[in-house]
């Protein structure tokens, strides 16, 4: 704050000449000083925490309905949560003019082994949390059709430079091309899973953590996907699962930012809640990755 004083000391005041300027200038400096004091003592406002539930449920054809309800982790301490107990909610799913109460199995999970979702039916979710009605609805999409692969066996050379540079040329196999029928620009995603009990790595991971057994493409509205041979990390049998999904699920793969400059609310199809309640359908092919 020293420049306040700097200015005021240096003001050479000639009372006779300049009372008006003097008064005005003093007034301005005083106001500035008061302003600086005011601004230094101001506190940030706190924003209220809204306790709404997080839903996670995938309705897959012929798989028993399962649903997980959780709370979001508050950012601030000392937030007030609602009195609802996560295992004592009355979760209703209605379809075809029927309503089912889904029983709790503990830890926020609700499951009904007798409710097996079917294609083309709309399922509606409804429950009360924090005195609000939480709702959502979804359909189970059709099973993918025309799912094909270009090869069933893929030969991949070992990448191991432990003993120095490899001699001779390295062959990179052609990518595995997956195709399916998609006439309505709906969303598809391929998940590739190594099914071996103890898979053999294709390359030396060095000190790095070994990669997981799954990898996938991004949700696409197209009708094909090429798996680059370099994407495979392990030898052995792989399941190639093609999911046919609803747009609300594809939205989940979008990044909602992690900086105050770009944060936005994540996508959700749950009203008065967060998370996902969506139907899925899948088809599976097999691929064997072997050593060349």
């Amino acid at each position, binding site marked *: 704050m020293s*420049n306040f004083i*700097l*200015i005021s000391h240096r*003001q*050479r005041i000639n009372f*006779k*000449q300049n*009372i*008006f*300027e003097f*008064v005005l*200038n003093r007034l*301005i400096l005083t106001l*500035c000083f008061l*302003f600086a004091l005011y*601004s230094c003592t*101001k506190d*940030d*406002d706190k*924003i209220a925490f*809204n306790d*709404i539930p997080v839903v*996670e449920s*995938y309705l897959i054809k012929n798989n028993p309905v399962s649903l997980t309800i959780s709370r*979001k*982790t508050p*950012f*601030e301490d000392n937030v007030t949560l609602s009195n609802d107990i996560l295992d004592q909610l009355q979760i209703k799913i209605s379809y075809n003019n029927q309503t089912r109460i889904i029983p709790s199995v503990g830890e926020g999970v609700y499951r009904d082994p007798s409710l097996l979702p079917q294609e083309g039916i709309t399922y509606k979710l409804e429950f009360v949390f924090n005195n609000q009605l939480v709702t959502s609805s979804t359909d189970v999409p059709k099973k993918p059709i025309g799912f094909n692969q270009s090869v069933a066996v893929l030969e991949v050379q070992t990448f191991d*430079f*432990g003993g*120095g*540079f490899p*001699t001779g*040329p*390295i*062959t*990179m196999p052609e990518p595995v091309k997956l195709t399916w029928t998609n006439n309505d620009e709906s969303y598809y995603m391929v998940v590739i899973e190594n099914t071996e009990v103890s898979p053999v790595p294709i*390359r030396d991971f*060095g000190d790095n953590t070994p990669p997981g*057994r*799954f*990898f*996938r*493409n*991004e*949700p*696409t509205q197209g009708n094909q996907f090429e798996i*680059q041979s370099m*994407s495979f990390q392990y030898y052995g049998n792989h399941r190639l699962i093609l*999911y046919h999904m609803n747009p609300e699920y594809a939205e*989940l793969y979008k990044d*909602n*930012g*992690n*900086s*105050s*400059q770009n*944060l936005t609310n*994540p996508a959700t199809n749950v009203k008065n809640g*967060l998370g996902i309640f969506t139907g899925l359908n899948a088809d599976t092919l097999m691929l064997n990755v072997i050593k060349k």
Partner: protein
Amino acid sequence: MKQFSFILFLLSVLTINLKAQTVENFKLTKNYAGTLDEILPEVGLDLNVRFIFDKDYLKKFKTVLMTDQEKTVGGMLKMFRASWDMITLVGNDGFIYIAKDKEQLDQLQNHKEVVKTEITQYRKKLVPVKRNFLLSGDLYDIENGERIPFATIVIEGTTKGATSDQNGHFVLEKVPADTAVVVVTYIGYHTKRIELEPQKENSPLKIELKQQSVGIAEVFVTGRKDDKALKQSTVTQEIKMSPVALKILPNIGEKDIMRGFQLMPGVSASNEGSAGMYVRGGTPDQNLILYDGFTVYNVDHLYGFYSAFNSNAIKDVQLHKGGFDSKFGGRLSSVTEITGKDGNSKKATVGAEISLLSMNTYLEVPFGDRITTLFAFRRSYQGYLYDKISTLNKPATNTSRPAFGGGSENKASYFYDLNGKVTFKATAKDVYTLSIFNGTDYLDNTPQFKMPAGGGGMAPPGGGASMGDISMSNTDFSRYGNVGASTNWDRKINEKLTSNLLASFSDFYSTRDERRSITINLDGVSTIRKSGILEDNNLIDLSVKDNWKYVFDDKNIFEFGGFGTYYSINYQYQQNDTLSIIDKETKAAIAGFYLQNKMMYLNNLLTITPGLRLNFFSATNKIYFEPRLNASYILAPKVTINGATGLYYQFANRVVREDIMSGNRDFWILSDGKEIPVSSSVHLNLGINYDLPDFLYSAEGYYKRNQNISEYSMRYSFAPQPGSAVQTTEQFFVGNGYTMGIELLAQKKAGKFNGWISYTLGQVKNRFPTQSDQYFFANQDVTNELKMVGIYKWGNFDFSASWIYATGRPYTAPVGAYSLTLIDGTTSSYYAVSDKNAYRLPAYHRMDVAASYRFNLFKQKGKQNSLSFSVFNLYNRINVSSKQFQVVDDVILQSDISYLGITPNITLSVKF
């Protein structure tokens, strides 16, 4: 006393206005000849008015009064004031006082009788030969012959005045007498008085001004620092700056015109990451930047820390904060008009500067009497300042790059800019100029990988390592900048009609290449596979402008012109060789015309400038009308009020693409009338200035209503494994908003110690219906902003200090987090976020200080060399630019991204 007299003065001005008009309107009934002390009693008798004057003083002046020239008593008094050193006043009592100065006037008023005064100095007793004639002239710098634009020229004792055009040319209509005194003021220069001499060919007048080599401090700010200039100031709410004056202000390595403006009210100073200006709640892209007539689209150097303008190549900068003339268009908020130096016309000059950031050199060479040239070049070097700022701005992680083994980083980054100008004065009436500008940043983060010596890992990419028949190389660089050029033909058709024809080109480019290329050589056939991203934005602007100005008479100036711009904008976002995620190419043209008429009424006290601008935009096939109105009124000799209103459209927008991984990127796009509508703004500005000889007080208010403003969002979802595609979604949010505020300025203009305090109270709110019905604080909203600048001159030293305080900008933060298990087995974390911009960052404040010493080398005239030392952020305030969030073990962690801490700098400037 002064306060008292001021109030009295105000009262008297208000009450006598009626009377004054009646007495001053009395018509002269015959011609008179002789000395003033003989003539006036005669006039008094004939018209039944009483003059009070000092006989001894007035008998020194001789004239002829003619009914067809002076016409009225008022006209006669005006001629007296213009011709000689005297002031006149029609008193409350109906008497007409004629005195040498204010002091004598007071005496006359108190005694109402002839007062004997000692006259030490007075003008020659001249008899005007010519009356009400047209006076034109040209302004030059006495040292280097540089033409001086936008200077103020007034006839002493009258409210008659003009402003020089960009060629330093001015026209004054109806100069009362050829014994008048012409006063020229220009920021950074000594005020010059020219006593016209009868019988001499006064027009055109060549006036040479001298630069204020040392006391730059007192003239740093505003076009209204002189009370005579103030009277003529009809352009509302504008700041003028002399780049020469910048060097005594604290800086971080470079004296920067944009940073200079940020110390003034209405221009936000709290954004270190943008050299572009946030004027009155507007964003940098809403500020039109014209450099010698062409539009500059990128002003940032080094993450926006410096502006791309080399102040050694700039002669004049004006910032129109709002309500700007019809001549300007295509932007919602403000106009920055930059005029480059022509170059020394008297001798060749070389200058050089070195700071901890850059090297700067300029060369001015005249060829004969008619051609001047200027060339300036500046380049950063990778010293301590460059590294410090670039480390600060470097993204923390870079996960968009395919994961490979480690390596060290080799940065070969720099920025440069160059300015060139050739001026050819072909005839007395024609001036041709060619001006070129290029400012470019090159940021290279290409990693240099080292081959592991027999170690494990797939590691080898980098710089071009080769393994048998596979070779890989990584690139990671950004290059962005602007190149522009204009050719300009100024023609003075006659003293009243001038024209200016300009053809220009401007190219903004921004490329980011973050790719890895793998070359596989198999059986003599080599295949190249590229992965990673390539982003490219290119804007080309080809423009023609034809401006005309016609001076009907001293009360009526008409300006009109036509313009046309052709835009071609490309934006491409490419991934993995062939996959183009976004590939946009837009082309459009804008054409139209404008006209405006500056009219003066009430004895030049009231100036009104209505204007109209008409645009045709080919992308929407629509015509856009922009009516404008500008007015100012001299309420009292030192008090001026001004106001402006108008409608403004913007057709090209800069959008910022958020990219957390490698820093935000911005690019330009054109409105298409559908997804991105043409945005518009209505301005309403009102201001009052009270200008004393030593102090200036000003208060200005503004309100802007913005329609169809858009915000852009493009998000990427990165696949957890290499090789899978990046999905992009683009979204434009369109909405409305408003911005309003009050700006206060108190400035001490003269003396060894001078400076100013400025305060801005502002608010910017937007509403995007697709997001919410509520208005939210825009990202650039700053409630309070206080800036203080003090400059002290002591011998050959200049000391300066500035302190800036600004309310923290708004931001959005998570209120909670949750995670979902996705069907591919991965778990993804999500933030539940607060309402948009519901939080505020901590207040921004910092203090900068500087000391500079002027000295002589090589027996030069004046003190042209200087050594400056400055400290940025003296008390090392950690100012937060944004916050970063992370979920670790179900806990949200927050980290602050800060601006620059304490940073000293030293600059040496030498001129040969």
